[in-house]
């Protein structure tokens, strides 16, 4: 392999379409050699890996197992050459892949991470697969066949224009795999690729990995906690100890025979070992009159849902918001002391239904009724003005917290306290429960979960498994009558599984009704009732497509220019008459832009969109006009002139902003304006995720509400809450950034100062016409200045 060629990924472009034999020889697996590797992240006194050695032969398939924190993921990142991508620390030793440093050939080491979707870069699946090809400067013309072949290879059959957000968990992992395979790697690294998937999906992903690595002859290293299924398809099992050294290494069967029971005791899911039993946790009971669990007799209905339909709204920059039906007409009775498992494929509405059951979201139609003793008014039933019992989504934060507990799937979102102990005691304090008893129960639950020593620690610094245990414990310490847990056992090792199930069952034994969404057969097996959900059929696309307004046919760069064409106006407009004239021109141009000639359905909401965007400008105009009046000689004409000038500045934007597509803007900025590629791509990738910030904000606020600490009234508490939640949002955003950096660098982005683009950014007639419109605005300004009185 010549090392002088800087971008070998691009060179092998033609091999993908040729015969299998030739391909196998061109890109068979490479040897991996790790020698004397030491890695100490800053902030750890002891290295995670110290003097670590490992050799993997070309085409060998290796499964890495070991307890949490033993350095398995670290090892994969080191082999990919990405240890310093999202972390800082002291690194020594050497890693080579096929005799070269791992990142010498971008894409030669493919990496797939645990969280489906964490590495998504683009707004369509085709573009996402092409990302690595762009980074190695593959010519645009060579990309489509390669993208299509790779998508077919991983079994993704939907249109290449589909958004990655619409994929299920298993499909997302296939997409991640395709992104790596498109670069024709020689080594494939999988970091718990099936941990977040249900058993069936996990099996299908495993068999895909098996097929692909065999066909391509790839070297494979997999990290997993659940060894079942993987053991059969690897040649070698390497077991790491808690201290990051290799404790066993050999053929899977013999290693398991020798070390299986020890691995199981350390939390690994070893095939052939019985399912773990939930921890037995006994808590000092609350006195009998508390309104939570126990106030409804065991077996009686805590919550009755009737004909519940939930709708889901998604917003995206530069596109209309969409409403989809997530749950349609569900009936469910949840009984005290019983567990209901909500099951079904991802996208079937389990989480949405749970939100409606717990009063976290308002159902679009149908009713959710709690047993009367649980409602805020008690048995008498507080009736609202219309004489009905208030639905739970309208209850105050503390009223809701008393009755409902919710454990979100991302346990990092559930952190509300500064210390572990603080976090556990948050809800009992908010509800004014007996402090002494609360403390005692907190001691008991922390001890049972092995968190006693961490009482003073910052919950955000806990490991994933510890955070999960804490989230469940904090949710149920005050014995709510209804406990909702969203995928509580996903990705957990045997120990965390036993702990989480233990707390949930302790809460059930106190008389709570449990609703658990899960893919986990172990958890389903322990439920009293199972409700299987299926995704409501998507609403059929309209027979005739909408006509597109003229402005929607213009590229983002030209739209941007129109929005900025107003900048000379303040220097030109001197009077209200001039302002009014230019405003008239702008409105006329705007209305022309909204016209939608052609055939098809009439587009709806064009004018409403413009008005919505203009509404906030109203107050700004008033403010400027007022200050101009006050400081400009108290003259109404001066005030009107200032107000109109400001309006002239913002009106064109209101017409064009809704039609700016961030991804196409990135394409044009890089290809037309030749802005530096890497910052443009990073910015575009971040812009794709605006809506995930929406979702995270929503989740953080819901958590606060259900924990009884949502600021329902008052300006100061609300500001304080906004600051706290913004902090949580930023932490979440930066976590996403770190994961994405890893995924992007694994696909050759680190050195992609020059890159090609899968999609061109042509300049069209519509763009030129839009520029002319912008010019007309400027000319109108000059004309007004010289032909109208000042």
């Amino acid at each position, binding site marked *: 392999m010549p090392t002088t060629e800087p971008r070998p990924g691009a060179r092998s472009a033609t091999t993908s379409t040729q015969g299998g034999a030739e391909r196998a020889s061109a890109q068979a697996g490479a040897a991996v050699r790790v020698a004397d590797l030491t890695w100490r*992240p*800053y*902030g*750890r*006194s002891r290295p995670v890996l110290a003097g670590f050695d490992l050799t993997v032969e070309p085409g060998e398939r290796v499964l890495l197992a070991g307890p949490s924190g033993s350095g398995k993921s670290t090892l994969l990142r080191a082999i990919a050459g990405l240890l310093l*991508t*999202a*972390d*800082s620390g*002291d690194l020594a030793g050497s890693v080579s892949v096929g005799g070269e440093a791992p990142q010498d050939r971008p894409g030669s080491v493919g990496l797939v991470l645990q969280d489906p979707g964490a590495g998504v870069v683009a707004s369509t699946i085709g573009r996402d697969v092409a990302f690595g090809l762009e980074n190695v400067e593959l010519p645009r013309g060579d990309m489509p066949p390669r993208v299509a072949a790779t998508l077919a290879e991983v079994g993704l059959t939907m249109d290449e224009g589909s958004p990655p957000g619409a994929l299920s968990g298993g499909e997302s992992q296939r997409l991640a795999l395709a992104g790596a395979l498109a670069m024709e790697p020689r080594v494939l690294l999988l970091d718990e690729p099936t941990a977040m998937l249900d058993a069936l999906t996990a099996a299908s992903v495993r068999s895909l990995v098996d097929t692909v690595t065999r066909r391509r002859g790839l070297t494979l290293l997999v990290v997993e906690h659940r060894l079942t299924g993987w053991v059969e398809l690897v040649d070698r099992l390497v077991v790491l100890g808690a201290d990051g050294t290799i404790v066993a290494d050999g053929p899977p069967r013999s290693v398991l025979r020798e070390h299986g029971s020890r691995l199981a005791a350390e939390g690994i899911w070893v095939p052939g070992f019985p399912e773990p039993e939930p921890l037995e946790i006994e808590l000092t009971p609350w006195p009998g009159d508390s309104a939570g669990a126990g106030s409804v007799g065991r077996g009686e209905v805590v919550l009755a849902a009737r004909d519940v339909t939930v709708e889901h709204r998604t917003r995206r*920059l530069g596109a209309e918001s969409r409403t989809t039906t997530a749950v349609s007409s569900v009936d469910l009775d949840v009984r005290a002391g019983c567990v209901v498992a909500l099951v079904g494929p991802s996208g079937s509405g389990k989480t949405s239904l749970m939100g409606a059951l717990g009063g976290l979201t308002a159902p679009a139609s149908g009713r959710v009724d709690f047993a009367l003793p649980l409602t805020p008014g008690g048995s008498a039933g507080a009736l609202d003005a219309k004489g009905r019992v208030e639905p739970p989504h309208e209850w105050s934060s503390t009223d809701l917290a008393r009755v409902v507990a919710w454990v979100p799937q991302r346990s990092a979102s559930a952190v509300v306290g500064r210390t572990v102990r603080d976090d556990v005691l948050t809800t009992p304090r908010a509800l004014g429960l007996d402090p002494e008893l609360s403390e005692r129960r907190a001691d008991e639950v922390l001890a049972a979960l092995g968190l006693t020593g961490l009482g003073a620690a*910052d919950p*955000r*610094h806990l490991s994933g498994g510890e955070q999960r245990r804490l989230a469940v414990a904090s949710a149920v310490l005050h014995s709510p009558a209804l406990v909702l847990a969203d995928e509580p056992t996903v990705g957990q090792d045997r120990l965390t599984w036993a702990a989480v199930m233990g707390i949930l069952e302790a809460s059930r034994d106190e008389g709570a009704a449990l609703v658990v969404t899960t893919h986990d057969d172990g958890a389903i097996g322990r439920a009293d009732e199972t409700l299987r959900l299926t995704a409501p059929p998507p609403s059929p696309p309209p027979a005739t497509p909408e006509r597109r307004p003229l402005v929607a046919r213009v590229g983002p760069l030209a739209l*941007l220019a129109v929005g900025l064409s107003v*900048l000379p106006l*303040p220097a030109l407009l001197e009077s209200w008459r001039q302002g009014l004239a230019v405003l008239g021109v702008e409105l006329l141009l705007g209305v022309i832009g909204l016209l939608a000639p052609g055939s098809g359905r009439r587009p709806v909401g064009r004018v409403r969109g413009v008005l*919505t*965007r203009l509404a*906030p400008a*109203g*107050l*700004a105009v008033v*403010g400027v006009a*007022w*200050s101009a009046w*006050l400081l*400009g000689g108290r003259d109404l004409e001066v005030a009107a002139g*200032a107000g109109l000038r400001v309006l002239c*500045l*913002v009106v064109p*934007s*209101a017409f*064009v902003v*809704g039609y*700016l597509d961030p991804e196409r803007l990135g394409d044009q900025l890089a290809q037309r304006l030749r802005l530096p590629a*890497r*910052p443009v791509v*990073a*910015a575009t990738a*971040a*812009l794709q995720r*605006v809506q995930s*910030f*929406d979702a995270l*904000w929503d989740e953080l606020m819901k958590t606060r509400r259900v924990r009884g600490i949502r600021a329902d009234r008052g300006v100061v508490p609300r500001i304080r809450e*906004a600051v706290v939640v*913004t902090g949580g*949002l*930023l932490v979440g955003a*930066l*976590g*996403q*950034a*770190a994961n*994405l*950096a890893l995924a*992007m660098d694994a696909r050759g*982005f*680190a050195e992609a100062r020059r890159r090609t683009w899968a999609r061109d950014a042509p300049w069209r007639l519509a763009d030129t016409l839009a520029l002319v419109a912008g010019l007309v605005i400027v000319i109108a300004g000059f004309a007004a200045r010289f032909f109208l009185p000042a």
Partner: protein
Amino acid sequence: MTTSNSVRPDEIRASGPLPRWRTIDLLTCAFLGVAFGVAYWAWGLVYETPSNVISAGFPPLSALLNWPWLVAGIVGMLVIRRPGAAVFTELLAAVVSALIGTQWGITTLVSGLVQGLGVELGFAAFAYATFRWGPLLLGGFLGGAFEAVYEWYSWYQEWDLGYKVAYLFLFGASVAVFGSIVSVALTRGLASAGALNAFPPGQEVRERHAV
């Protein structure tokens, strides 16, 4: 490790050559920008009324509520510590708030650019070697002052020069003081949450609490 023990915490430099941005530098700036853009959009919705109230008697006082607009750029610079961080973060925050829809439309981009440039100049004047109060005060003031000059032109043409100057100084000073304090607090908060492990501020926190 050697650097963090021998150098003042606010003087740890970014790794590698300063202008050589790592992917995580770019993405962190970008995600900060997007998150702040969303926050700015929300702040833009609520801020107009109090701003109009406090400035009803003396309009230049509205400058006192303007410092939040510059926090994105300052935080970006405090975290990444590379040339361009303030402009990149602030500009992206402006793009996002404009795309969601603010009262200033696309002209927000100009504000984002001049604010980011002002902050950037403050840190450049200290050769990106220190991230303490000197560059914070200077950068904050310049960022506020630049924006004030742009607003003289676009919004407040009718004001007398005296009012304009008062606006500029109030704006610059409030960013230098409040903007800096909030940005430093935010950066420390993010570092102690473990969100800045790959950056100098996080590195400093971690080495201090090494376990």
